[in-house]
């Protein structure tokens, strides 16, 4: 749950917003503190200016008192001692009423002398004017009366006691004036001096009610209250209070208020009725105190409220932003992702037609179209791959059919019991079958045919053509044609059956396994290698035309004899044209080297070593053509139990013995008379030949072997004389006239005419001459 992108983003946003609000709160608190201070200053200022206004009145009243005192001393100086009614004269009256016109704030005021100062006969001398209810200034004469006796009044006593020198002023404690206006008053007085002698006082009355009224109006906050105390803090003259708090403080001294005396010292904060108040205390010029108490929560409440509101608004906004972000993310990220996941699952289950359709937001719209494109591409790709796979499978099966055709027709037993020769062949088909084949079989009792061929073209058609060709060759070969006839017939028949224009290159050998006589037929094929006297060489043979190219072509057949141990190595161009990674071909030279380096005499091993050399050369490059090889080794005709041996000195006496022996042999093998004579003739000639040439003047031996192998009579003559091949001798020209004819040279000529086969070899210091006849 906490690992989803959506929750992570929301948590991140929320944390960011909370951090922001925390920072804002801190800064809010700082601002709040500043605001508190500012608020305090502002209230202090308001209250101070209110106090100042009162102070101004106080100063004015004080100055009025001083003015009056001056006037009093003037009156004293201008007194007429004799005039007992001086104070009732017009002049003092006039002066005081006019002065009072300017004392707008005072209720009344007067000049009061000490006893007998103006007139020694008159104890009380005063003058008092006041504003009546009509705001008219009138003189009150009643103050001069003995009943009132201003000298005994508290205010007079206080003031005159308080004044110490000139221009000193003194404020009386508040009092109720019963005589005049009958209101709560206080009076400021100044001393009247004659020189240094205090002779009386002037007074200016101040109706405290008016101040109280204005104070009462002062209500900075709803539950704040104001105290106004007199100069000795004895009495609370005025207070404002929440009407609900029904306790009257009026008339009490400040000391009587426990919270005041307990809390106020050096503090600006008090607790009253379990409520905290901020207290502003102002000393007025006449010693009175103005104390304004504002409930703390009312003072700072609005600011606190302001900040709280801001904080909560911010909090709400944060939550809203987070919620909407959550929703936004859900709608714009999670839902599309969910869709994508579902579609992916569907596609994963194989439904490639599943389409995703997201239009908003743009990124996901792009993603979804890319996704759709991807599934389309995958679909196309899969289709393509399927097609390719299908094609490939088809091709593969075609190839494997072709391959199996090719393999199935190849002979796979290699005449293991044949003593006269060893044969082995192998074919490795290329991926695309190349149409190579080999074959070997007896065409009659003595002649063995082996061949290697390569059909042009590849694949099934080539394989089928190869099969046809192979069958055709084998069938025709059994018809006892001569090699030349055979190959020409083969060519003609291939041409006949060749509508596709295939052709075949072929190399074939037909060997008489008794005599080693071999006929080579090369139809445009790579010349084979032949090992004679322990050395391989390419057989020098005319190539002839390929088979199947043209009708009625003459083919040249070349004949030779294979000696015991001779090897023929046939191959197709797959061997010599095998490529290595540098795109170079294996080549005929390397093949020759490979064979000559190898001392193996076993045909299977010879093939294997060539194969591994080709493989090593091509270094893993894929084989491009069939690699087909055939190796034939001639072991000669075995001299087994059918062989009879003769030996004698090479003399005429020896010949006589030989004749008898030969006759017996012919009888033993039931050779008919005619052939017996032929054999006799040939043997005599060969015997004569040895007597004549082999040993010169020396004596020597002659050996003969008479064999009857598979309906063939083979007679071998062996001598230790000088190497002499009678077959090298040119035949005599038998058409010459008598005189031109030499008398010799006919023997070997006759021999050649009389045998079915003859061959000569010189081996181990021996002349070995072999003649053969077929017998039925």
């Amino acid at each position, binding site marked *: 749950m906490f690992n989803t992108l959506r929750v992570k983003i929301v948590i991140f946003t929320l944390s960011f917003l909370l951090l922001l609000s925390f920072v804002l709160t801190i800064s809010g608190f700082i601002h709040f503190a500043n605001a508190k201070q500012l608020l305090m200053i502002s209230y202090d200022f308001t209250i101070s200016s209110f106090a100042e206004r009162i102070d101004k009145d106080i100063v004015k009243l004080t100055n009025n008192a001083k003015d009056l005192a001056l006037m009093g001393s003037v009156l004293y100086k201008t007194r007429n001692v004799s005039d007992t009614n001086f104070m009732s004269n017009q002049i003092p009256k006039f002066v005081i009423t006019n002065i009072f016109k300017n004392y707008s704030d005072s209720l009344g005021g007067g000049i009061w002398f000490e006893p007998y100062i103006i007139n020694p006969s008159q104890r009380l001398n005063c003058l008092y004017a006041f504003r009546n209810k009509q705001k008219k200034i009138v003189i009150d004469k009643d103050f001069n009366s003995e009943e009132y006796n201003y000298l005994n009044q508290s205010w007079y006593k206080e003031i005159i006691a308080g004044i110490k020198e000139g221009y000193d002023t003194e404020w009386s404690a508040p009092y109720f004036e019963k005589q005049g206006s009958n209101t709560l008053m206080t009076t400021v007085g100044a001393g009247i001096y004659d020189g240094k002698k205090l002779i009386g006082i002037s007074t200016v009355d101040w109706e405290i009610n008016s101040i109280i009224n204005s104070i009462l109006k002062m209500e900075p906050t709803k539950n704040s209250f104001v105290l106004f105390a007199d100069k000795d803090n004895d009495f609370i003259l005025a207070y404002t209070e929440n009407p609900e708090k029904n306790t009257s403080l009026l008339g009490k001294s400040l000391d009587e208020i426990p919270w005041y005396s307990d809390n106020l010292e050096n503090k600006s904060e008090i607790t009253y009725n379990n409520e905290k108040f901020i207290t502003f205390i102002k000393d007025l010029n006449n010693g009175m105190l103005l104390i304004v108490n504002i409930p703390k929560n009312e003072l700072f409440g609005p600011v606190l409220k302001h900040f709280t509101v801001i904080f909560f608004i911010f909090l709400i906004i944060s939550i809203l932003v987070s919620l909407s972000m959550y929703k936004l993310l859900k709608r714009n990220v999670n839902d599309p992702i969910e869709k994508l996941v579902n579609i992916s699952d569907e596609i994963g289950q194989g439904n490639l037609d599943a389409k995703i359709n997201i239009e908003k937001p743009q990124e996901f719209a792009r993603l979804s179209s890319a996704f759709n494109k991807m599934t389309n591409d995958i679909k196309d790709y899969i289709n393509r791959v399927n097609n390719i796979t299908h094609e490939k499978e088809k091709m593969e099966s075609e190839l494997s059919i072709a391959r199996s055709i090719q393999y199935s027709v190849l002979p796979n037993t290699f005449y293991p019991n044949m003593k006269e020769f060893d044969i082995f062949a192998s074919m490795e088909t290329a991926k695309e079958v190349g149409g190579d084949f080999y074959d070997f079989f007896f065409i009659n009792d003595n002649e063995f045919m082996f061949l290697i061929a390569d059909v042009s073209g590849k694949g099934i058609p080539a394989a089928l053509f190869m099969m046809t060709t192979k069958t055709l060759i084998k069938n025709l070969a059994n018809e006892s044609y001569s090699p030349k006839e055979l190959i020409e017939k083969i060519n003609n028949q291939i041409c006949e059956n060749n509508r596709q224009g295939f052709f075949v290159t072929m190399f074939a050998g037909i060997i008489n396994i008794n005599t080693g006589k071999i006929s080579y037929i090369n139809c445009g094929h790579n010349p084979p290698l032949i090992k004679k006297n322990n050395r391989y060489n390419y057989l020098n043979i005319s190539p002839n035309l390929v088979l199947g190219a043209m009708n009625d072509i003459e083919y040249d057949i070349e004949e030779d004899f294979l000696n015991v141990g001779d090897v023929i190595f046939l191959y197709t161009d797959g061997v010599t044209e095998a490529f290595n990674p540098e795109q170079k071909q294996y080549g005929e030279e390397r093949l020759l080297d490979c064979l000559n380096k190898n001392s193996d005499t076993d045909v299977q091993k010879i093939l294997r070593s060539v194969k591994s050399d080709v493989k090593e050369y091509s270094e893993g490059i894929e084989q491009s053509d069939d690699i087909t090889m055939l190796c034939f080794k001639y072991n000669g005709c075995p001299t087994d139990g059918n062989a009879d041996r003769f030996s004698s000195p090479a003399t*005429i006496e020896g*010949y*006589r013995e030989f*004749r008898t022996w030969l006759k017996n042999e012919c009888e033993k093998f039931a050779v008919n008379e*005619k052939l017996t*004579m032929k054999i*006799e*003739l040939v043997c*005599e*000639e060969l*015997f*004569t030949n040895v*007597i004549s040439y082999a040993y010169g003047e020396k004596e020597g031996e002659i050996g003969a072997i008479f064999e009857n192998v598979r309906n063939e009579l083979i007679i071998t003559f062996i001598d230790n004389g000088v190497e002499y091949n009678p077959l090298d001798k040119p035949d*005599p020209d*038998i*058409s010459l*006239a*008598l*005189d031109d*004819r030499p*008398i*010799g040279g*006919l*023997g070997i*000529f*006759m021999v050649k*005419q*009389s045998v079915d086969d003859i061959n000569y070899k010189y081996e181990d210091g021996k002349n070995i001459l072999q003649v053969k006849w077929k017998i039925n």
Partner: protein
Amino acid sequence: MEIIQKKLDGNKVYIKPVGRLDLDTSAEFGIVVDEAIDDVRELLLDLAEVDYISSIGLRVILEIQKRMSKQGFMTISNVAPEVMEVFNMTGLSRILTIV
């Protein structure tokens, strides 16, 4: 080998070898005939009793023929098929007078 020879008249001789004309016998036959044909103009060689001839026999006959060609002529008669075959094979039938 047995060689029958008859002097028919002053310079005419009849010779009839009996048996094989081979390595073993030809030398003897050659010597006998050589002696017999001294000053003879006509030689009648009857090969009726010869069933085998090898190259060495041919050689002798060729030598006799060469000599007789110089001093007269030679006629060969009653040639057995086996021998005739050899004559044919070697081309001698064309240079010998065979009746």
